[in-house]
């Protein structure tokens, strides 16, 4: 068993920042990550980091924009923390040498971004995430922080008191990818989850193959509630074969969307008579899908984004990287032909419920980054608000876990205060099929076990699960199950959501869960067994897919990225509340908690979201 004060799971922007912060506080910290840190998906972020750095801008404005963008589902204390801390954290990155783009006077450059009232998106070319990730990894190397690289975390070691609020997280169990060794990691102070996105729930996503929502699923199964899972952001212009993102900049510069008949559908069919291609992400995504559904899509799958009329000179000058992206990943030269594009999953607003210090309701369990829901993004994330979330809340979680004295959080976690129990009308049984209680050790109180014993117990259980998977000689392979879920989610729980389709999705997920009972791993090798790891990930995908769908079915309104056919408007009287889901030993339980709109100095009154 390995032992450290603080264990950070995941080495993307959030994980690295948390580790550095814990180290600053003098904790013995280690990172356990299934990918080498520089391989994390934070590297893919292009746009920038929102931070109110300049005269004429203020954190209050940033907070206002964020609240409005969230469609009033963000919690003000978290939003204000984000906006207040972001400038300092962004400058911190600069002091660590991050290669930001520069203005003539040598200051870091900022640019305008959708939904922002001030150009406050601080950027480094079209590779802000890459620069951020590498800069922070460099700081990690400088500090000599231990990284268990290519160790796949499979389970949290949490005690099993009845109420999640009474539980404590003592460590994790991880699988060494290179050697096939399964080991326990004891965390004396705390475990910080920073496992990133969950895009692999869909078959078409801008997320990496490693973004399988592991952290969210593990925390969920350990009893931590998950929040607002139905809010998934779809990006309207991604390349069909890979999901690679084509920046909004193309439309910003004047790129035009066409359907099969060469019609400029945004206008022709009245999706956005004023803004056309420049309407917000969700509007454009829905328009594209309507075209395809009504038979006007190309190859029944995508539409065309054409920028040839801008002229080669202008394209090369402003959008050069798009030429490479389209050629390398789609085989289409955008100077000669229109680019095929379609909507793709992009970001998960929901995640593990935390307060503004990154803590969950389970003592010693923290979450930060995309896997967490503090919540700053509410119903819809503004471009450029995820990266500051990583550095702001990553740092806070790191400090808190390392024992730094912090102000008590205003956001509550777990079922305390005025929560509202609820039910969802599911056509099938939800939750685990057969496997039974899992995150929490089976059959009996570990409540009076020592921390070491809890970890040992989780380790033994996990060894058994993995041995079982490897010993099994036949059955079904995970790829089949995963593909079914991904397809169903893309078909039924996409930008269009209607009751029957959502129920179909639940049925499909149930069926997949049952199939999963028979999953086996064909590759019996202990060395770099990606077959086994993906099989484990697929289980997380099942739990996450279900939580998204349950949330979507329950929330009968249109808010932020969540659109319901039956209720095409925001319904504030009923729905100014977060969708919460607790695992409850294999049986999902739905409940709600109110949104906090009262900020430090003012209350954010819901207004119509129009730009």
């Amino acid at each position, binding site marked *: 068993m390995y032992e450290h004060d603080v264990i950070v799971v995941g080495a993307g922007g959030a994980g690295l920042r948390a580790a550095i912060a814990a180290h600053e506080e003098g904790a013995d910290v280690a990172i356990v990550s299934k990918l080498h840190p520089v391989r994390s998906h934070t590297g893919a972020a292009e746009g920038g980091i929102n931070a109110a750095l300049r005269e004429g801008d203020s954190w209050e404005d940033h907070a206002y924009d964020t609240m409005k963008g969230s469609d009033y589902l963000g919690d003000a204390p978290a939003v204000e923390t984000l906006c207040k801390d972001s400038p300092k954290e962004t400058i911190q990155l600069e002091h660590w040498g991050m290669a930001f783009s520069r203005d003539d006077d040598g200051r870091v450059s900022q640019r305008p971004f959708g939904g922002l009232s001030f150009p406050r998106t601080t950027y480094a070319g079209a590779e802000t995430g890459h620069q951020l990730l590498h800069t922070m990894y460099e700081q990690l190397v400088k500090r000599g922080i231990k990284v268990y690289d290519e160790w796949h975390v499979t389970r949290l070691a949490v005690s099993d008191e009845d109420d999640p609020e009474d539980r404590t997280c003592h460590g994790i169990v991880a699988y060494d990818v*290179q*050697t*096939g060794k399964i080991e326990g990691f004891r965390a004396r102070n705390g475990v910080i989850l920073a496992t990133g996105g969950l895009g692999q729930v869909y078959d078409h996503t801008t997320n990496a193959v490693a973004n399988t929502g592991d952290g969210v699923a593990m925390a969920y199964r350990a009893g931590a509630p998950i929040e607002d899972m139905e809010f998934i952001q779809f990006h309207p212009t991604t390349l069909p074969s890979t999901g690679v993102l084509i920046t909004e900049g193309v439309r910003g510069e004047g790129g035009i969307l066409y359907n099969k008949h060469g019609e400029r559908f945004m206008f022709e069919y009245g999706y956005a008579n004023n803004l056309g291609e420049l309407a917000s992400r969700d509007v454009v995504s829905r328009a594209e899908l309507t075209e395809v559904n009504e038979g006007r899509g190309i190859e029944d799958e995508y539409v065309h984004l054409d920028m040839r009329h801008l002229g080669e000179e202008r394209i090369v000058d402003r959008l050069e990287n798009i030429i490479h992206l389209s050629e390398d990943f789609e085989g289409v030269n955008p100077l000669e032909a229109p680019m095929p594009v379609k909507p793709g999953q992009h970001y998960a607003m929901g995640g593990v419920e935390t307060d503004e210090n990154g803590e969950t309701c389970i003592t010693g369990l923290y979450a930060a980054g995309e896997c967490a829901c503090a919540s700053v993004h509410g119903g819809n994330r503004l471009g450029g608000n995820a990266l500051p979330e990583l550095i702001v809340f990553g740092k806070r979680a790191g400090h808190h876990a390392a024992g730094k004295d912090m102000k008590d959080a205003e956001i509550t976690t777990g079922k305390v205060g005025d929560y509202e129990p609820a039910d969802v009308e599911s056509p099938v049984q939800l939750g685990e099929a057969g496997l039974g209680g899992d995150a929490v050790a089976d059959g009996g109180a570990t409540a009076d076990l020592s921390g070491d014993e809890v970890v040992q117990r989780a380790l033994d259980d996990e060894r058994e699960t993995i041995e079982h998977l490897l010993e099994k000689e036949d059955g079904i392979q995970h790829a089949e199950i995963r593909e079914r879920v991904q397809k169903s989610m893309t078909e039924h729980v996409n930008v269009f959501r209607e009751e029957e389709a959502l129920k179909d999705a639940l049925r499909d997920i149930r069926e997949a869960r049952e199939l999963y009972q028979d999953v086996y791993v064909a590759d019996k090798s*202990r*060395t*770099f067994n990606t077959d086994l790891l993906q099989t484990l990930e697929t289980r997380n995908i099942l739990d996450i897919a279900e939580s998204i769908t349950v949330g979507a079915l329950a929330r009968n309104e249109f808010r932020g990225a969540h659109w319901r056919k039956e209720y095409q408007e925001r319904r504030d009287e009923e729905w100014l509340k977060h969708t919460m889901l607790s695992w409850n030993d294999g049986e999902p339980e739905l409940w709600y908690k109110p949104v906090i709109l009262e900020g430090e100095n003012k209350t954010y009154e819901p207004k119509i979201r129009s730009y």
Partner: protein
Amino acid sequence: MSQSYNRGLIEDFGRWREFSAGMWAWIFHKFTGWVLVGYLFTHIAVLSTALSGAAPYTNTIQALESLLVVRILEVGLLAVAVFHILNGLRLLFVDLGVGLEAQDKSFYASLILTGVIVVASVPTFLAGVSI
């Protein structure tokens, strides 16, 4: 750590088919360099027959120079030297950071130019040889 498979030394030079211009240039430059040092030593050895007087020297030289093999070897030496010089110039420019984008073209140019110079010099080099 788990076992791992080392593909061994074949890896190092067994992939010559896949070498790029720069690698060939490196190999040729090495080869020609070594030939030139080799020649330098032999050359001085031959020339030092002069230490034993004028006659032995003139005899040795003329005996050698009248042999066709020697003449052919000399043409070879010329080729080697010319390539080494041209590619050496290419390398000097590379070291100065000049024309890096055209490094492959300049290598091909060195090769071609070497060929041309050598062919053009053959008559001179073979002049007066007795077969």
